[in-house]
């Protein structure tokens, strides 16, 4: 029943460090040979690094397996080795069954050829036989919704049509083992749902599927098993829920609180010094911050100069560097010497998912900055997971307000 589909043992992949371009030039080789003909042409010192090192795992037949990890952890390199695009430096992989891979949609599409011609070309590139493509042709076209444009050159296709056709061809590959890299994020919303549905069919049809994705929700929905790669090695593997939450914990090294006990060493100047700053949910303080959560920011300062007139300002940036929010308390009130606590509350149903950075300003009565910190705190807003109707992709938009929709049919 549970025979292996893939067994990898001790795979390693070494790359040259790319200070210089990865390719060589013949001119250099000749020059090097001419200047030192007694040394081997290849003896120039090179630095290497291991993109993968000693990676071993087994994947059972019929399993849907997800590979997760940060950027640069080696996910794509591993997939490229399994898909035979590049060779390993060491180790060995056994694959039982025909292998297909979907590393990118529409690879090899030629803009000058028509949709019909590209289906055959791309199918052949993916390893399909002509007869097999002919048999699946109508299905591929119907799934991609390009019936009307079959005899149009692909260069006239919209980008949506292009990816739909590319995905559709690859999705109709009937290999026993399928490698899929980050392709669930192609096309528009409706098509993504369709892709996910198709992948769910593939995963439950007894074929072995290996997904690489940043999208943990998609991985959890599709896979029974997850392999977590970290700096080129297998960090952990197991059930998706458990692995994904451990992975998330490791990724989340946010600074949601900062505390300085000693005024002398605390950041600040002769007027104010920072004692503490924190960001947390306004009500259940140890719960996760989701898109629904109202967020409380607190700042405690020592006022060193009695009677200082102060204003405060917060700017909130998201991971794309967009200033999502600008807010402040600009009353330039006078404060006595000693500790003061300032609180600010961001309402729920406002921020979209993602990582945020809090930039904090203390201003004088002329609104001139006395002290600033560009990255005082960072925090992440997680998805609240409701109101999605099954859609698992990234929710677009800088904000995520709770918009009230109604419909009526006027007579």
């Amino acid at each position, binding site marked *: 029943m549970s025979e292996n589909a893939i067994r990898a043992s001790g795979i390693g992949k070494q790359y040259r460090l790319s200070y210089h371009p990865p*390719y060589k030039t013949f001119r250099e080789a000749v020059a090097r040979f001419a200047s030192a003909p007694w040394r081997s042409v290849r003896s120039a010192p090179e630095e290497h690094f291991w993109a993968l090192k000693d990676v071993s795992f087994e994947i059972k037949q019929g399993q849907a397996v997800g590979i997760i990890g940060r950027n640069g952890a080696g996910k794509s390199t591993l997939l490229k080795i399994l898909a035979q695009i590049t060779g390993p430096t060491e180790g060995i992989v*056994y694959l039982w069954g025909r292998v297909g891979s979907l590393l990118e949609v529409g*690879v090899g599409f*030629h803009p*000058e050829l028509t949709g019909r011609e590209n289906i*055959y*070309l791309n199918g052949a590139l993916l390893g399909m036989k002509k007869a097999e493509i002919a048999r699946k042709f109508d299905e591929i076209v119907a799934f991609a919704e390009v019936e009307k444009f079959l005899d149009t050159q692909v260069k006239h296709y919209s980008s949506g049509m292009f990816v739909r056709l590319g995905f559709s061809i690859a999705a109709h590959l009937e290999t026993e083992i399928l490698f899929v890299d980050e392709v669930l994020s192609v096309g528009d919303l409706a098509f993504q749902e369709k892709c996910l549905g198709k992948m769910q069919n593939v995963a439950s049809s007894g074929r072995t599927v290996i997904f690489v994705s940043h999208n943990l929700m998609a991985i959890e929905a599709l896979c029974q098993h997850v392999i977590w790669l970290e700096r080129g090695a297998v960090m952990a593997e197991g059930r998706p829920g458990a692995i994904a939450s451990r992975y998330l914990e490791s990724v989340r090294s946010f600074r949601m609180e900062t505390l300085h006990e000693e005024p002398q060493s605390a950041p600040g100047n002769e007027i104010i010094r920072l004692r503490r700053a924190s960001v947390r949910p306004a009500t259940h303080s140890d719960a996760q911050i989701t898109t629904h959560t109202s967020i409380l920011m607190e700042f405690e300062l020592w006022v060193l100069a009695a009677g200082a007139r102060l204003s405060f300002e917060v700017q909130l940036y998201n991971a794309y560097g967009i200033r999502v929010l600008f807010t402040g308390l600009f009353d330039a009130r006078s404060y006595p010497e000693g500790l003061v606590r300032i609180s600010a509350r961001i309402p729920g149903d406002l921020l979209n998912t993602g990582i945020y950075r809090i930039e904090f300003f203390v201003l004088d009565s002329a609104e001139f900055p006395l002290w600033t910190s560009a990255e005082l705190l960072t925090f992440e807003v997680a998805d609240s997971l409701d109101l999605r109707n099954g859609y698992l992709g990234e929710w677009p938009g800088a904000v995520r307000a709770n918009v009230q929709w109604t419909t009526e049919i006027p007579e």
Partner: protein
Amino acid sequence: MAEQNDRMLKVIRPGADRIGVEFSRLREYRELLFFLVWRDLKVRYKQTALGVTWAVLQPLATMVVFSVVFGRLAKIPSDGVPYPIFAYCALVPWQMFAFALTESSNSMMQNQYLISKIYFPRLIVPLTPVFTAMVDFLLAFALLIAMMPFYGVVPKLTILLLPVFLLLVVLTSFAVGVWVSALTAEYRDIRYTIPFLVQSWMFVTPIAYPSSLVPQKWRMLYGLNPMTSVVEGFRWVLLGTPAPPLMPMLVSGLAVVVILCGGVMHFRRLESTFADVL
């Protein structure tokens, strides 16, 4: 269970697979080769204003230039046949070789996107230009046959030997193409030397002149260039020029085998790194 034991096993390990394994994969992917050849032909003929006629026009125009410059002005001998057909008969296989060589030098760069995203036997990349060149060859060859009666050339029984020289030009094209494609992937600047290489190679091949102009003592060395034997062979079996000596011919055959085997070995040694360097 029995069915599972029959499942195909594929093993991935450092270095290249055995050549036999690679050949069976090439056979498995022959339809891809067909589609790539068809793609290149279709796109090329779609993009040029002259379309298919270009395949014939190119050697024909060269023939006219050669006839005027070398035939009329320089009065170069042509082994007793009219100079135009003497030159054209050599230009037909030469164009095939030159085209395959030039296209091979671009093939890795042109297909780098495929190579970094999809698995297929990489030898298909240098094989494709050889096959596209063959299509052009057939068109130009048809014109050669049509021109022969016009110049009063009647083929003799030796024409039965034509397949031998056809095979020789195909193998030479592939042997040199496989070297060039691997080298262009390894060294980026090799590409710029190709036009010069093609031009020089043309002058060390008896296209504009008969090889009888080459002193006897150099003939063996001259045979190291397989295109010499291709061109002489074509003239011999089609135009009825004097039979070329056997020994230089054998030297050419041996040279092709050595270049081909060395090229394939070199290509396969680099094969698994193409996706990383391109």
